[in-house]
């Protein structure tokens, strides 16, 4: 197993003809991912690395069996692209795009409410099930198949962690970058629930950061019903107080969004918290043994 993506994943890339889209689609194909179609409005019939481009996602879905979308379209069109993919019935939608207006995401998330569709991101590196499938922009070679699920709000910091895990001999089942924006599709809890049901995942490394209360919610969920060991790291312990707006938002949910508070909450809920990012690989290894 693994979660969300595997050997049966068949991907349409929205924004395939763009610079980023074509580059990363190629990287995914090199990794072994089955990119079966592309979508760029008005560019129907073009080919990129042998992949046919369509005008709309629905059109692509009529021509190919597709279950996953990877989105690279510019921020001002990205909300539309996400909804287009979900409306076409795709079950996993991965949005790499950074900079989507938050009120666009308010509507998109309300739209997705109750729909059978996992949105990963936006503003995320995507996800990878090592050795099986990569739907994202992370460097493939640092990953190894194995029992560790990784879930993270960060990009390069996830690569750092995965690299340490691999070097410590801990391969990964699936690594999910859920994205750094205030409003994202899948939260820590959403992904943890999938890891809970995944037989191939033996333990989870969770990488959080300052802002919001997603880590606190994850802590409560883990204590109540997550059956596997969790090792966590929170970035931003020394960050200067954030924008006040972040505060007002967090206050509503009963938190302050500071790393210190998050780390304390995680510890209170029995979760192993790593302080020194340089040690996370070895600490994970020790914690799991």
């Amino acid at each position: 197993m693994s979660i969300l993506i595997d050997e049966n994943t068949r991907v349409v890339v929205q924004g395939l003809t763009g610079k980023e889209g074509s580059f990363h689609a190629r990287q995914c194909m090199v990794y072994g991912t089955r990119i079966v179609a592309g979508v760029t409005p008005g560019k129907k019939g073009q080919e990129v690395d042998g992949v046919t481009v369509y005008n709309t996602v629905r059109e692509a879905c009529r021509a190919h069996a597709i279950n996953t979308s990877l989105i690279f379209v510019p921020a001002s069109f990205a909300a539309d692209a996400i909804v287009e993919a979900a409306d076409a019935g795709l079950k996993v939608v991965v949005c790499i795009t950074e900079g989507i207006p938050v009120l666009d995401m308010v509507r998109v998330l309300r739209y997705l409410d109750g729909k059978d569709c996992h949105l990963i991101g936006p503003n995320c590196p995507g996800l990878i099930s090592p050795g099986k499938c990569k739907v994202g922009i992370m460097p493939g070679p640092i990953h190894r198949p194995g029992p560790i699920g990784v879930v993270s709000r960060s990009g390069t910091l996830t690569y750092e962690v995965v690299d340490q895990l691999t070097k410590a001999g801990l391969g990964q089942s699936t690594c999910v970058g859920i994205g750094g924006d205030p409003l994202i599709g899948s939260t820590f809890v959403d992904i943890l629930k999938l890891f809970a049901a995944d037989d191939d995942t033996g333990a989870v490394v969770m990488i959080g950061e300052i802002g919001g209360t997603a880590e606190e919610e994850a802590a409560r969920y883990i204590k109540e019903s997550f059956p596997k060991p969790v090792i966590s790291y929170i970035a931003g312990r020394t960050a200067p107080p954030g924008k006040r707006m972040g505060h007002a938002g967090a206050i509503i949910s009963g938190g302050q969004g500071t790393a210190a508070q998050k780390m304390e909450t995680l510890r209170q809920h029995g979760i192993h918290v790593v302080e020194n990012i340089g040690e996370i690989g070895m600490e994970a290894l020790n914690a799991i043994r």
Partner: protein
Amino acid sequence: MKLHEYQAKVLFAREGVPVPPGEVAASPEEAGAVADKLGHGPFIVKAQVHAGGRGKGGGIKIAEDRDAVVEKASKIIGMNLVTPQTGPQGRLVHRVLVERAFSIEKEYYLAITIDRTTARPVILASAAGGMEIEEIVQSKPHLLITEAIDPVLGLMPYQMRSFFYQLNMEPALGSSFSSLLSGLYQVFTKYDCSLVEVNPLVVTKDKKIFALDAKVDVDDNARFRHKDILEWREYENTWEEEAARYRLNYIRLDGTVGMMVNGAGMAMATMDAIDLAGARPANFLDVGGGANAEAVANGFRLILSDERVKLVLINIFGGILRCDVLAEGVINAVSELEVKVPIVVRLEGTNKEKGTELLAQSDLNFTVARDMKEVTSVIANSGLADRARKGIKREALAKLSVIPE
């Protein structure tokens, strides 16, 4: 993007939110002219800076008549306003807002922001006006009233009534409160705000409702929809602005370790590692997850122009970008500049070995750290560590190239 009070009040007025009569002025003379326009006093003269607590710092003054307005304005314009929110360095005041002053009967707090957990706009209100939201939450949480807005519906009349009755306003104020609140929500959605805050919202002794203060943050990601508002931006010549010109995400901090990292999370983790080593970062600098050689060079220049910096730490996880290309970028940037401080480089990812080799072979003075553990050790032993180090051992130093101390 934070708007000034006077700018926020322009948006309020557009959407029918009542604000006190008034105008902005950039000089004492202009302030006097505004007073003339407003007619009789008393007036209030308010410093226009992006910081709360202006009153405590002397940035808000009552003026009985026109002459007093000119006098107060001349004191405030050009002053370096220090408030609990500006930090000790304060902020230079360029403009004042001159408004008619009212006798206040009651103050309320009202704000609209995004609640991450429900992923919806949320309206917060409290009869404990004039206090900061943090204070209200701490001291009078029972007085905080919230309503989440479902984007299917927008702000509904029953939600406005819920605020109105819980705030215990007089029945006669019902319709003016509703139009104020729906106007504020209109501002929030129409201009893609991440925050709209009115603190205080007041009822005057003659039973009028006004947004006495106004704070609006516009979502930076939605700038493309609001070109007109973007023109209101005032540049203050900060390091942050300079960095933004090169599309770098920079925040000035108070330490001595200049650092450049790709990815915000990684940058924060690096700051934390520097702190663990007992030193302090001079800045946060994220050159972007997909950093290229040019971004690295620009970031490098920015750090080196900061004379507080005693050591530069470059921490790049190559990802898609190859480490050898990055190493070249760093070497070129360093060669161009006269670098007097030690440079610690940590490269990871594709072609790491080749990149490291290039750094080693250059005749420049790089210290190479092989991983985050080594980064911490190097910093701990750099002589910049002025606080207790948490479990970072000096011995690690032996493994590293020599660092000038």
